[in-house]
């Protein structure tokens, strides 16, 4: 339960248990980096997570309720897929879980996948989709065999004011002063809750961004983020944020030997839209950075903004440390007065670089 008096602590997700998938909330499924689809006994889609929507380039809102084998993925309307699913559902003695390889055909390319079938109640079945390889579109497929594009599922949505990016994700273009109004709203209803709300929002949003970045890396490079060079991943994150218009994110690992590193944000959209402030204001980014680096490090970290453009600083700067050192970081922040080098100096017990 979220409370402005007891902020939630981020936690690393436990190892995924396929047999527990039906107990997961939609938000939990959306934080998984692989596809999850739930079909009812008639073959209609009842649940569809974010990674699957991103990899299939279909909007969940258009997929839910449609018949999976005929409308969403006609390439699965074959004995090797639908027949396998039907046989699995009709034969409980085959156990709660079964795995088989398959090739999904999309108009934009083919995907080699491993499908994990998980039996659920009331004749439902979960498809856990593990992408193994991305290929060009296969030639010689019969018409209508490959999965439809989003614009074929919903051909008139432009008339309804629906906008999409190049990967068919729905986007909303708003002015950055949306954040000014959000901040003003919080100032009226919960003046002390802004930073907790923003940070938690950043954490949640950061977890979804991680899925986006993992999927991008998988599609473009065939590997997960943790396998890539640290420089490459930091660059990809910077490009991702810059592309969305949040500012220029750069990582300084110069303090690594002191168990900390720094993320600088030039021209923060948050700081510039919210207006002048006595204290740091980019808590949304602090939460997002925390989610991103928690995932990369597979450790719980603490992220605090040391100085903010909203205070008149040239740039916003965040220091990242392991969560056990959060108290040390907060103490260093109190003593350093917005000076990043001083924070790092105090974190190092007053040793090394510093005044």
């Amino acid at each position, binding site marked *: 339960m979220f409370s402005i008096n007891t902020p939630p602590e981020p936690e690393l997700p436990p190892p995924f248990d396929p047999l527990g998938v039906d107990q997961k909330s939609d938000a939990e499924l959306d934080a998984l980096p692989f596809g999850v689809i739930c079909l009812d006994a008639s073959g209609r889609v009842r649940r569809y997570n974010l990674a699957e929507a991103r990899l299939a380039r279909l909007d969940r809102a258009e997929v839910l309720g449609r018949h999976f084998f005929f409308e969403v993925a006609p390439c699965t309307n074959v004995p090797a897929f639908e027949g396998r699913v039907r046989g699995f559902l009709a034969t409980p003695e085959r156990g709660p879980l079964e795995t088989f390889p398959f090739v999904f055909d999309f108009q934009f390319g083919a995907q080699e996948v491993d499908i994990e079938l998980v039996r659920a109640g009331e004749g439902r079945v979960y498809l856990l989709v593990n992408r193994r390889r991305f290929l060009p579109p296969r030639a010689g497929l019969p018409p209508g065999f490959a999965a439809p594009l989003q614009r074929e599922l919903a051909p008139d949505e432009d008339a309804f004011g629906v906008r999409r990016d190049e990967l068919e994700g729905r986007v909303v273009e708003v002015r950055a002063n949306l954040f000014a109004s959000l901040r003003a709203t919080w100032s009226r209803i919960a003046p002390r809750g802004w930073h907790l709300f923003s940070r938690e929002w950043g954490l949640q949003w950061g977890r979804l961004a991680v899925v986006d970045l993992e999927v991008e890396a998988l599609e473009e490079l065939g590997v*997960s983020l943790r*396998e890539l060079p640290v*420089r490459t991943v930091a660059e990809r994150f910077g490009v991702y944020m810059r592309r969305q218009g949040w500012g220029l994110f750069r990582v300084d690992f110069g303090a690594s*030997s002191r*168990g900390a590193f720094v993320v600088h944000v030039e021209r923060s959209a948050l700081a510039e839209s919210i207006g002048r402030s006595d204290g740091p204001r980019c808590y949304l980014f602090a939460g997002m950075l925390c989610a991103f680096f928690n995932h*990369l490090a597979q*450790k719980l970290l603490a992220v605090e903004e040391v100085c903010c453009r909203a205070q008149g600083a040239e740039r916003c700067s965040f220091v990242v440390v392991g969560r056990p050192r959060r108290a040390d970081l907060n103490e260093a922040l109190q003593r350093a007065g917005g000076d990043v080098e001083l924070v790092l100096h105090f974190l190092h017990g007053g040793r090394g670089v510093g005044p």
Partner: protein
Amino acid sequence: MSGPEAVSGVTWARWVWGLAPAHEGQSVADFFDAFPWDGASDDEALTSVDFFAAFGDEDEAPAPSTLRGYGADGTRGGHLP
């Protein structure tokens, strides 16, 4: 996408500073697994250059990676060996 060239009109901009040569090309997993999170390390090899002193340096090409699955249990969601 690599370094200053990626940022049109901001030629001094770089995405990453302070990686010692020994850590260039190192995977995220290896880098953060060895990171001195307790702050107790005196391994100055972890750090090389000052943030602002590094403006204008050239980037290096990333090292090749191996294929391995990802996901909370390390087996789902990505490529297998």
